[in-house]
């Protein structure tokens, strides 16, 4: 079997060096920043196609020296140098894009050490705060989305490194106590235990020059050292001690990555001392460290020298290396230019050509026109002649309506796409569902939305109509208070209701410590409960108000007076006469409330991040969860997806309206008579 080698893969969209790299749950690689010229961008590498795809830009400030962590909720926590003008934390979700995260309590962090305690907790310690070097530390929890300040380090540490020990503990080593050049190097290390705080983890000469810590396995960490005593050191938690490792084949200060096999690959870097301008010499060397044999071996060199490349392990044997700087210009000769090229070790060569973006397919309009034609023929065929077919005419009208929606939607999106994309071709947020087949997205999203609608509609119908029947049936004056609350609820915007619901969730959490909210984008019972509650409140109020009007209008009819004159109990009159006679109008009211619900669906789903038809539709027309930017972002319409989603929503509405219309005719003989007369 041939030895694995480096193979070319797709080029980065933006030249980068020193970018933050995170492997996502779907196996893709997210890189952020490292593009001083680009002002902080991000892109995703797909190992399947070898293609890079730009994603929504991170918030301002995450250009260099950022660190990313994949959390248990499948999101990436990005920590970067912050200031009073820029955030120092953000979160990336493959479907929602960038989400804001509260800044750590250590304001203006820089040169900090950070590592994951476990799947959901990230420790941030030391660095430079607003008042200089700091010994403060804080933990971010993915469940609560909040930072909690924890015990301080034993001393201030600037530019230290951190790594997880794999058992809920984090090791922090190296760094300097202050920014002063004459500061005494700190060759000590300490371990953070969430239960007991910090404790010493021994020391080793030269440990202060640690530039990267890598977890080798439970309780074992590898430290890569530079400076006067370069090489590697290994920490063993069982003995709480450090040991120097074997010398590297090449004296480089490269980027290391741990492969799934447990080996560590050291790639490129600097062959010079790296201590000042003009001393950096990019390297193409690649070395492999095997912890089981505690030995190094050399691998094939990279295609070009790379200083500060981005390195990521793709699977057991494959490693991606991209970007970096090949040539460092002499002082005064200009700024170095990062590379765009990328290569994969142990993989096959790929071109990395991305697929086309979503321009509305002409197939939609062809389908829509065909449906219109069929509808027209069916309607004419059923209406003209000696024996008009009511069913045929109905189906014809249905086809006409659906075809019209498809054509109108296609025309609108084609028009908007033409205007927008001619102005600003470019990249926008991508989401996981955009890369899936259209049919699958529609099917899954429709299922989720229908679940939400079903619960909301059920609740709204029971509460709204129930209240209307109760008020009319009980003839209780005190229940008139419902009228005022109904008027209030009906004018409260849906997003305000959602905000109030979130306040309620925060209140419950604050009082009891119970987490009653689901995270953005989660699909579970808690999310469906809150989202359907918000979605159903206004339709419930609408049903109450109009249902009551319908029933009260019926009470003025002669047959009601007759029934009462006959001595029938009022409850009996309501049950046997009012509800039956008002049934048709109540169904019409219900249809209107349903339309109200469909209209609010995009907003509610967007608010809760619920991946149904509404949220995907809003995102497919360019709305993102981005945390804001000074630069207007190009808008990308996912034309086919947007059309498919609108048509699906419209079809749901048409089908519900049609079936409700049938129910209305069946319930109310007066409507049947009017219909027959027409």
């Amino acid at each position, binding site marked *: 079997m041939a030895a694995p080698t480096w193979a070319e893969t797709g080029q980065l969209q933006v030249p980068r060096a020193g970018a933050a790299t995170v492997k996502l749950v779907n196996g893709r690689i997210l890189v952020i920043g490292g593009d001083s010229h680009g002002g902080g961008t991000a892109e995703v590498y797909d190992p399947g196609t070898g293609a890079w795809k730009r994603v929504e830009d991170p918030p301002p400030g995450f250009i260099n020296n950022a660190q990313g962590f994949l959390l248990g909720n499948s999101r990436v926590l990005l920590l970067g140098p912050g200031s009073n003008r820029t955030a120092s934390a953000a979160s990336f979700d493959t479907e929602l894009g960038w989400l804001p995260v509260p800044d750590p309590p250590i304001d203006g962090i820089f040169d900090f050490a950070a590592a994951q305690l476990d799947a959901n907790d990230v420790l941030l310690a030391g660095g430079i705060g607003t008042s200089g070097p700091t010994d403060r530390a804080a933990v971010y929890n993915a469940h609560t989305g909040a930072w909690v300040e924890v015990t301080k380090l034993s001393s201030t540490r600037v530019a230290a490194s951190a790594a997880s020990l794999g058992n809920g503990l984090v090791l922090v080593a190296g760094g300097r106590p202050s920014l002063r050049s004459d500061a005494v190097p700190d060759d000590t290390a300490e371990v953070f235990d969430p239960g007991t705080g910090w404790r010493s983890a021994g020391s080793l000469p030269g440990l202060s020059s640690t530039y990267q810590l890598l977890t080798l396995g439970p309780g074992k960490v590898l430290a890569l050292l530079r400076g006067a005593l370069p090489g590697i050191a290994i920490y063993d938690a069982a003995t709480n001690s450090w040991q120097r490792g074997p010398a590297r084949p090449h004296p480089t200060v490269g980027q290391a990555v741990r492969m799934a096999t447990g080996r560590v690959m050291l790639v490129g870097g600097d062959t010079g001392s790296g201590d000042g301008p003009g001393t950096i010499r990019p390297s193409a060397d690649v070395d492999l460290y095997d912890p089981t044999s505690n030995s190094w071996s050399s691998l094939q060199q990279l295609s070009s020298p790379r200083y500060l490349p981005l390195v990521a392990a793709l699977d057991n044997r494959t490693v991606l290396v991209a970007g970096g700087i090949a040539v460092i210009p002499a002082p005064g000769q200009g700024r170095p230019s990062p590379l765009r090229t990328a290569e994969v070790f142990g993989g096959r060569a790929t071109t990395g050509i991305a697929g086309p973006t979503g321009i509305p397919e002409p197939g939609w309009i062809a389908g829509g026109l065909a449906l219109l034609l069929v509808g027209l023929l069916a309607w004419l065929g059923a209406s003209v002649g000696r024996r008009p077919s009511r069913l045929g005419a109905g189906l014809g009208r249905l086809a006409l309506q659906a075809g019209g929606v498809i054509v109108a939607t296609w025309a609108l*999106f084609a028009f908007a796409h033409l205007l927008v994309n001619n102005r600003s071709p470019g990249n926008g947020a991508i989401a996981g569902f955009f890369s899936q087949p259209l049919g699958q997205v529609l099917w899954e999203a429709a299922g989720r939305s229908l679940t939400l609608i079903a619960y909301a509609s059920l609740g709204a119908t029971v509460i709204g109509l129930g209240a209307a029947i109760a008020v009319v049936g009980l003839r209780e004056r005190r229940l008139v208070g419902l009228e005022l609350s109904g008027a209030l609820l009906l004018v409260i915007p849906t997003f305000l209701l959602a905000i109030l619901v979130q306040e309620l969730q925060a209140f419950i959490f604050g009082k009891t410590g119970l987490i009653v909210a689901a995270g953005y984008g989660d699909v579970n019972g808690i999310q469906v409960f809150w989202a359907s509650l918000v979605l159903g409140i206004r339709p419930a109020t609408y049903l109450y108000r109009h249902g009551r009007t319908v029933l009260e209008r019926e009470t003025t009819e002669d047959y009601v007076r007759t029934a009462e004159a006959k001595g029938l109990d009022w409850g009996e009159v309501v049950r046997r006469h009012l509800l039956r006679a008002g049934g048709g109008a109540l169904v019409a009211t219900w249809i209107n409330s349903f339309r109200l619900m469909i209209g609010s669906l995009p907003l509610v789903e967007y608010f809760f991040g619920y991946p149904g038809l509404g949220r995907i539709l809003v995102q497919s027309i360019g709305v993102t969860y981005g945390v804001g930017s000074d630069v207007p972002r190009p808008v990308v319409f996912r034309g086919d997806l947007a059309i498919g989603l609108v048509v699906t929503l419209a079809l749901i509405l048409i089908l519900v309206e049609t079936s409700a219309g049938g129910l209305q005719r069946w319930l109310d003989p007066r409507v049947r008579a009017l219909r027959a007369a027409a």
Partner: protein
Amino acid sequence: MKWVRAVLPFVPCALLFGALAALLWIGLSQPVRWAERRYILGYLSGSGQEVAPAYAPLSRVDVFEQGSNVRYDGHLYVIGSDAGGRDLLVLIAHGAVLSLEVVLLVVVLRLLIGIAAGVAMGLGSRRVQTFTTLISRWIAGFPYLVLAIVLITALSGWSRFWAFAIAMAMVGWRDIAQLTAERVEAILAQPYAEAARALGGSRFGIFRRHVIPHLRPVLLVETSFQFSAVLVLLGELGYLRFFLGQPFSFNQILLPQPELGALLAIARDYIISQQWAPVLAPAGAIALLALAFELLGLALRSTDRSGRPAYVSRRAAWRAPEPATEPSP
């Protein structure tokens, strides 16, 4: 006591409008710097305790203007401040003026389109009726927010202001058209309209002399409800980051132009950072304004006797009663 009965329904909306107008006046009478500059450092008046924005409602703070470092003592934040230390009341007051201008324009456009379509549906020939009904049904099949966003995005290159006005007008004219068509049909079925036809009156003449006078009170009520609906839509679009003015950043807290929708554009960021006043204040302002118009519409309807015809048109029979009270766009 007849006048008391006539005035009584207007009391709640008059009180609400009065309170909102007073707040608007207070906000507008404050120097505009409280909506334009940043005040990121302050001390609670009296105690001298250092505080940072967002300043709490009803707090009196000695603040420093960023950039010039000029100190302003004892500024009262009636409903709090945003994250840049700017007075929310002043921001909302200035934003409300621009927002109400847009809302007024949108309502006028909706009325124009809706009345034209409604008259065509109720008075036009069979073909015109079929065509306008079909168009109206196709529009109804489109989720209103999405239609508005697509139109705003597409037309913004031409003019952001008119993009908003046209987009919001295009999503809400259907209710007015339906209402107008129903009323036109109902009026044309009345004996006096039939008599006018029998006497040889032209379509236009009957419309001018008999239909328009009966349409006026209904449309007045509907106009009030439309103000409410457009305000809510403006807030919803703002929450989805579609607002008048330039994009801005949450962290830099720079609003180039206060507008009620723009004030809500960073609502999610405020919610995540657990700052409620900067979200609830503009959202509450929109809701209260909408409620005031809703109450005005209800009051106007309670005084309108023309809205209860003995005849129920065919179209009306298919719809829920009193559709105009629906405050959705």
